[in-house]
């Protein structure tokens, strides 16, 4: 009888516009309690998660099942290192055989990612840019993201940066950072000739900057690298990238315009747009990596 009555109440409240009329608050409480009994136990994900053992067992089972399926797939896949695999087809042949002629890059990977499939790489550098902007959105100080304690800690860190001796770190930083940055520049500039390229070189430069900043404190970095320079460099590089690639996409698709001179393969000034694009990517990546570091430590660049 009680159940029927509650059902009637339910119906009546629904006709009246749910919890609008009558003892609304009490109704909500009673309804939620009742529903928990009926539904919660079995269907809600939270409850499965609450049941530690069941959840653990399920996830292990899923993973093991996954590994099993994948191993049987691997068993059926083309053989490792076999030259007659489907992946080694005319696409790869063209990249390797006409690559030098068509892109001017001796490093075929660089030629491939910055010329044949440059749209992907454009997306990739945008991912980096967006990621650093997200980190700015998250960690840059504002009224939602401020705590006294953290401020005090940051002040303490600054104090140590200025007054602590740290001879090994400082001397090491002074000696190593320029070398690391120089090596990074080498890797970027030789991206089309040797392994590496914009991304790896940029990361190396970023690592050098991080070393310098951690040895001498961020105050010193800020004398030549502020948030404004950071955004300016990123935006300028991305715009250059965007312009170069728009030009080559547009002219390529419509069969118009002038060819970019490819130069003599093997020279440092060769291979059309690849060198400037590598430099752009390298600068973006270097700024991004340092930007991550600065935002992670101080919440500001």
């Amino acid at each position, binding site marked *: 009888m009680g159940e029927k009555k509650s059902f009637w109440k339910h119906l009546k409240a*629904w006709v*009246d*516009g*749910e*919890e*609008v009329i009558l003892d*609304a608050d009490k109704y*909500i409480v009673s309804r*939620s309690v009742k*529903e928990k009994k009926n539904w919660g136990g079995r269907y809600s*994900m939270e409850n499965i998660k609450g049941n530690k053992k069941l959840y653990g067992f399920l996830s292990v089972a899923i993973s093991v099942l996954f590994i099993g*399926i*994948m191993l049987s*797939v691997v068993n*059926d*896949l*083309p053989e490792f290192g076999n030259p007659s*695999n*489907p*992946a*080694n*087809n*005319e*696409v790869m042949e063209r*990249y390797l055989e006409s690559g030098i002629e*068509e892109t001017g890059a001796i490093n075929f990977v660089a030629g491939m990612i910055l*010329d*044949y*499939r*440059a*749209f*992907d790489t*454009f*997306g990739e550098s*945008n*991912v980096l*840019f*967006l*990621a650093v*902007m*997200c980190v*700015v*959105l*998250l960690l840059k100080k*504002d009224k*939602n*993201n401020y705590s006294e304690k953290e401020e005090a800690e940051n002040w303490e860190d600054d104090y140590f940066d200025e007054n602590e001796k740290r001879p090994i770190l400082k001397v090491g930083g002074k000696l190593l950072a320029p070398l690391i940055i120089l090596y990074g520049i080498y890797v970027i500039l030789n991206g089309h000739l040797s392994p590496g390229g914009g991304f790896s070189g940029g990361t190396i430069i970023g690592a050098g900057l991080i070393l310098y900043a951690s040895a001498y404190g961020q105050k010193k970095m800020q004398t030549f690298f502020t948030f404004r320079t950071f*955004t*300016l460099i990123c*935006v300028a590089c*991305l*715009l250059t990238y*965007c312009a170069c690639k728009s030009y080559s*996409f*547009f*002219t*390529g*698709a*419509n069969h*118009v315009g002038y060819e970019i001179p490819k130069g003599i393969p093997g020279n440092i000034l060769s291979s059309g747009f690849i060198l400037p694009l590598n430099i752009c990517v390298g600068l973006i990546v270097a700024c991004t990596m340092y930007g991550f570091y600065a935002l992670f430590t101080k919440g500001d660049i």
Partner: protein
Amino acid sequence: MEHINWIHNIPFFSIFLAMLCGIITALVKNGRLAFKIHSIMVFIIFVMSVILLISVVKNNEIFTFMMGHFPAPWGNELRAGPLEALMAVTFSIVMLLTVSGGSEFIFKDVVPEKQPLYFIMLNALFGAMLALVYTNDIFTAYVFIEINTIASCALIMAKGTPQSMVGTTHYLVISLLGSGLFLLGVCILYSITGHLLFPQMKEAILEIIKTEQYRLPLLVVTGFMFIGIAIKSALFPFHSMLPGAYHSAIPTSSGILSGLVLKSYIILGIKLIYCVFSAEVMHTLKITEVLFVFGLAGMVMGSVYAMRERKMKRMLAYSSVAQIGYIYMGIGMGSRVGMTAACFHILAHAITKTLLFLCCGSFVEDSGGKEKIYHMRGAALRNPLAGIGYTVGALSMIGIPLLAGFISKIYFATASVYSSGKMAAVLIILGVSMVLNALYFLPSVIAIWTPEKGVEMKPVSSVSPLFAVSIVGFILLNFVLGVCYRPITRIIQMSIELLAQ
């Protein structure tokens, strides 16, 4: 310089324009200026997409656009046909209306110095969605899926409250799982076909089906890719990220995420079905059946979850789960009629759900940040325009004639006749889910129109003109889709014929 076909350049221009605006916005310091740049950009893209749509429909063609100097198997490619153009038009118009209608929420909820960053994310998200719609290359699709993920997470957390951080973390982890599976699928697919572009892959896959050599890997790959896409588009068992994220985000973000971002993944899935795996292969591998079953489950369970919810935004999020279930059911029917219904429902849901989220956001704002339906009694009397918008949206979701939702349901019912063996299931579930939809939408509609006892409801005097324009625009769009649906369905049918060739 003799002959440039400017119309064929439109997909490329739209993607690059959106990305370019995203980059330039980083230099802007003022949120309002960023908003203007964004709106102008979206409007230009809207005009271009309309031109593209008219042109491709008139010529009845699908064309590919070479990105760079190298033809198909070597370079990247874009591809545009009626479906892509129609989706681009829809995306741009919904984006335009949502952002202009929700601009007040952005300016109110996001910290002023970070507003330009929000618009960077919006621009990039828009560019990435267009790229997902137009792409003809599976790895490009992966890269832009990642851009989509990062930008949508940024949109969720832009509010800066702890709840939104929790929602973002949940969303991020589950989306990354989805893109990981998608990437694994891409890798295996590359190793058995040796190509990355859709048309070449399709040939290789037909070859595989003929020779039976890599049949198991092909089955598993298809499974992984569609599980990945299903996770990304929140098909039923993977929906757990939606409610928390949508609940804690700004209404504008919730509307865009639910109305457009989820749809962009589904459109990628549709393109994969037709351009890579081909409908027959999907049928022989029984993937469509699996999608069909999960779609049905999603339709019912999403509605059941929505009924239990007492907070309006979470209810709308669960309702999205149910509507995604409808779309997957249409895809899973495996017939072109079903696909037409699914595509039409994508449009209908995009314009309806964004409208609902915007109105809901405005109710929450009017009632002082309280979110339970119970607190919103009489909210529509305070803000009649939003009330009318919410009512129209809810009725469209339930499937009242003259509105967009009704047409898509009719199409689903018609499609079920053509797919043997699924008719009974579709019709029963469709009926049940319509009743469930009514059961959770009607109480909220009644609640917002019933004043609280003893409290006098005065209309809020200041409704911002942009908000009014966007709500009216959405309502009109709803009626347009509900009344003059013929040309649109004809375009969809045509595009599916073209895609399936």
